[in-house]
Every structure is written in structure tokens, then in C-alpha cells.
């Protein structure tokens, strides 16, 4: 099956540091693909290359067989690749409504108010529209970040540690939400919380030191000795 998005030999070094080092990666339409790996493994850098936030040094990225390696980030968003930030990046001095409206109107939404209300309801933030985003709790800002991603109506939604800072109850709601998105939307999920990963993911890729350590179905990944060594059993915490 042809991949929706494919990366070949993707590379990004920071000085001598090989943050992403020749990664091959395929994202299939409709899957929930988890990207895991220890802190500093290069996960955020890798998806930043996919979304265009950081320029690629070498390698190629295709979206539905179109080469988008050199496309600027804003143009990739228009093509349906949405990225939600690991470090919350909302507009703190604007209202929650305006935050989501900016995403919705970028997607060319008709009936802005309804679109915004729908996205906020999806993350259980209905009724918060009038608040300043900066006044929300950290967890709610994370959810706002997700709502902005949803309002973009993306083909591929990249979530960078979305459950960080969420309460247990909110995590359950979040899992339900992500499941409801597929297969219409394809989800690429960076996540440290292994329960969330094992519950949601239909495919997992493990990064370590900028390289792909393993990729496959959850069961195969769980029983892979290399992965256990480097990550799962390696004493690294599953925070969140």
C-alpha cells in the first residue's frame, strides 16, 4: 500500500549532534502511529522536519507521492499537515475563541463560530471561548493546542506529547477523542505515557539517538529485546 507520507534518509544535525540521522519512515492513511524513544532521541526534531518547522539537511519527504521536502511550513499546513507543539504555543493574550478561530479560518472554514465551538467541544473546553488563553491552566492550554490542531481539519495530525500535564480523567477523554479521529485523519503521536501508546497505537516507531531502532505493531515492539534495552526496560521513566 502506498504510504500517505513517507520520509527517506531524513537527516538533521545540530553541530556535531546527530538529532535525526537518516530516518526512513512511512505513515499509512488512517493509522495511529506512535513515535516513542528516550528524551533527546530526536522525536520532536523529526516531526519538525515533517511539518517544515525546521529545514531538512538531507533526505526527502513525500505526501501522497508529492515531494514536499522544500515546501515552507505554512504551505505544508495548507496541504493538511498540522503540528501541535510539545512546548505549548498558544496566543496567551488572545481569547480561546480567537486562538481556535485562527486555525479554523486558515482551513477556510465557513461558519467560523460553529467550527470553533465544535473544536472546543471535542476537547471538552466548551464554554471557555471568552477566556484569555494565558489564563487557562496548563492542562487546558494543552487541550487548546489540540483543539487548534483539530480546527485545521488536517489529513495528518502530529501530536507532540499531548497528554503531558493532563489529569487522569482528561487522558481518558483524550484517548476517546483520538480514536474518533481515525481513519478520516491520520495521527502521528509522540508520547511518553506507555499506557496511552499501547492503548491507541496501531503502529509504533522507536527512535534512539536519531535513528530508527524498530518499527512495527505494538506487540512486536513490546517484545523486541533491543527496544526493551534501549527504552522500555532501560530504566527510562514513562512520565505523565
Amino acid at each position, binding site marked *: 500500500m502506498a504510504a500517505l507520507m513517507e520520509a527517506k534518509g531524513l537527516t538533521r544535525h545540530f553541530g556535531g549532534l546527530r538529532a535525526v540521522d537518516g530516518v526512513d519512515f512511512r505513515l499509512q492513511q488512517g493509522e495511529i502511529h506512535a513515535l516513542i524513544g528516550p528524551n533527546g532521541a530526536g522525536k520532536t526534531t523529526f516531526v519538525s522536519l515533517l*511539518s517544515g*518547522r525546521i529545514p531538512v539537511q538531507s533526505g526527502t519527504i513525500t505526501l501522497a507521492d508529492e515531494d514536499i521536502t522544500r515546501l*515552507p*511550513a*505554512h*504551505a505544508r*499546513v*495548507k496541504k493538511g499537515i*498540522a*503540528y501541535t*507543539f510539545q512546548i505549548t*504555543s*498558544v*496566543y*496567551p*493574550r*488572545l481569547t480561546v475563541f*480567537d486562538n481556535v*478561530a*485562527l*486555525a479554523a*479560518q*486558515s*482551513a477556510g472554514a465557513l461558519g*467560523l463560530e460553529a467550527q470553533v465551538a465544535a473544536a472546543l467541544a471535542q476537547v471538552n473546553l466548551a464554554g471557555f471561548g471568552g477566556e484569555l488563553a494565558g489564563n487557562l491552566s496548563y492542562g487546558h492550554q494543552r487541550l487548546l493546542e489540540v483543539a*487548534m490542531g483539530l480546527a*485545521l481539519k488536517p489529513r495528518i495530525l502530529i501530536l507532540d506529547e499531548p497528554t503531558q500535564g493532563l489529569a487522569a480523567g482528561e487522558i481518558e477523554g483524550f484517548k476517546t477523542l483520538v480514536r474518533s479521529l481515525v481513519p478520516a485523519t491520520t495521527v502521528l503521536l509522540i508520547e511518553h505515557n506507555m499506557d496511552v501508546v499501547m492503548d491507541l497505537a496501531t503502529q509504533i516507531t522507536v527512535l534512539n539517538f536519531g535513528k530508527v531502532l524498530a518499527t512495527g505493531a505494538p506487540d512486536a515492539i513490546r517484545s523486541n529485546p533491543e527496544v526493551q534495552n534501549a527504552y522500555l526496560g532501560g530504566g527510562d521513566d514513562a512520565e505523565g
Partner: protein
Amino acid sequence: MSLSAKPLALHLGLIAVLFAAQFMLPSYHATNVSRIMVLSVFAMGYNIAFGYTGLLSLGHALFFAAGMYGMGLPIWTLGWAPVPALIAGLVAGGALAGLVGLLALRTAGVSFMIVTLMFAQAGYLTLLYLNTHTGGDEGFVVDSAARMIAGFDLSTDTPRYMAALILFAIAMLICLWLVRSPFGRVMVAMRENEERSRMLGYNPFRVKLTALVISGLYAGMAGAAYGMLFGYVGATFATIQYSILPMLYVLLGGAGTVIGPFLGALLMFYLIDIASGYTTAYLFVVGAALVVLVLFAPKGILGTIRERGLKWLP
């Protein structure tokens, strides 16, 4: 949004007050207010770039002067009629802003300030250098025959006041509409968090260039009207002072508010007017006022009022 009635009422109310004021103000003050209204249009344009989009330009005198010369030169050298000349001024301001933006918007922050400043300085020196065509630093007087529109002599008090008011009203209502439009929201987004806006699919360069061109259109229109209404075109209007003035108006009145530029222009104009009656060091008074402002109300008068409760203020 039922709230939108309130801002509209406020802005229409201001226009009504200014209309009524001409019948009550003595001639000296009526002329002052005419000037203030035209300078407010300039400041509104500055506010679109600086207050809403976050582009701190030090070169807006260039766009003001472009409008003034764009209007004045065709009249002076080609004998154009006033309306096409005013349109030429408007276009000149926007076009020059677009040109400067194409280059200057490759930079940001302090570099953007410096690059716009240098462009404005280059424009000023060009006016002096081409003195046979531009009148150099003496400038030139706009022919009084070219200051008649539809039978109204714009060199006389009432038509001049009305012309300034009409321009002011149109400019303000367009600004109000713009900042409440989806594009207005994107301008603010660019100011607040450029990286986020990029990742929402907005091209920062294009958004900023558009805002700068709109800003230049305002400045150009104001420059053209100023030359037409007060009858003089000169290179002093291209000096750095005229880049600083709209910034001061905006800072004083409240950056990112629609009425702020007018309020700032009104107060600053009279502050200078009154201070210069007492001392030749009136710029010192202006400086002191600014220090107080930055220390105690960094968001300007209306910005502070908005923060303290009038949340709906656009």
C-alpha cells in the same frame, strides 16, 4: 456578535462630535483639529503596521512624503486636477511601502527598524538631491486652483475641516472593519506569535507585506491630503521627525486600538502647542510626557482603559 453595536456606536459618536465641533471651535482651533484629523489618518496607518501587526517601522515619513509628493508633483509639473492627484498620492504611499517591505521584511526587530530608517533617510536625501524637480528643501506651494474640489475651496476653513473629517471618518471606519475582520485577527496573531501563526498555515512574509502596504496607503493618503489641505509640499515631511510622530501618537493613545491614534495625535498636538507657548524647549516637555507614559501606562491611554474593563474596545 451583539457586542459589535457598541464599538460602532462609539466610533460613529466620535465622528458626530467632530462634526459638531467645527461650529463651536474658534477658527484657530478648528484648523488645528483639521490638522490633527489628517495626522490621525497617518497614525492609524502606522498603527496597522506597528500596533496590530507588530512591525516597528522607523521609516513611515517616507510613505507620508510619497503621498504628499505623489499628489503635489503631478499638480506642480503636469497641472493635474486635484482628485487624480490625491489618488496618485494614495497609490504612491502604498507602492513605496510594498517596495520597502519586499526588502525590509526579510529582517525583523531591530534590523527592521534600522532598514526602514535607512530607506526613509535615502528618500529624504533623494528629495534634496533632485531639487530641480522636487523644489529641494524649500518645497513648493500647491497651486490654489488645484485645491478646489466640486466647487469647494479647500484652502478655506469649513471645506477644509469637512474634507479632513470625511477622510478621517472613512479611514477610521475602514480600520475598524479591518481589525475586526479575519485578516485583522491574523495581523494580531503575527504580532503575538509568529512561529505559531506559521504553523497554522499563514505565510508571515505575505501577511506582514499586506499590512505594510495597507499602512502605506494610509500614510500616503494622509500625506496627500495634508499637502492639499494646507497648501504646501516640503522635504521636512520626509525627515525622521515625521517617522517618530505617528509612533508617539500611537504609543500615547494606545497601540492596537482604533481610536488611540486620534487621541494620541490630539493630546500630543496640544501638548506641543501649549508647551511651545511657555518654552522653546518644548521637545523636553514631550520627552518627559513620554517617559511618564512608558513608566505608568505602557499600553497607552486606551490600551490601559481596555485592560481595566472596557474589554470590547477594538
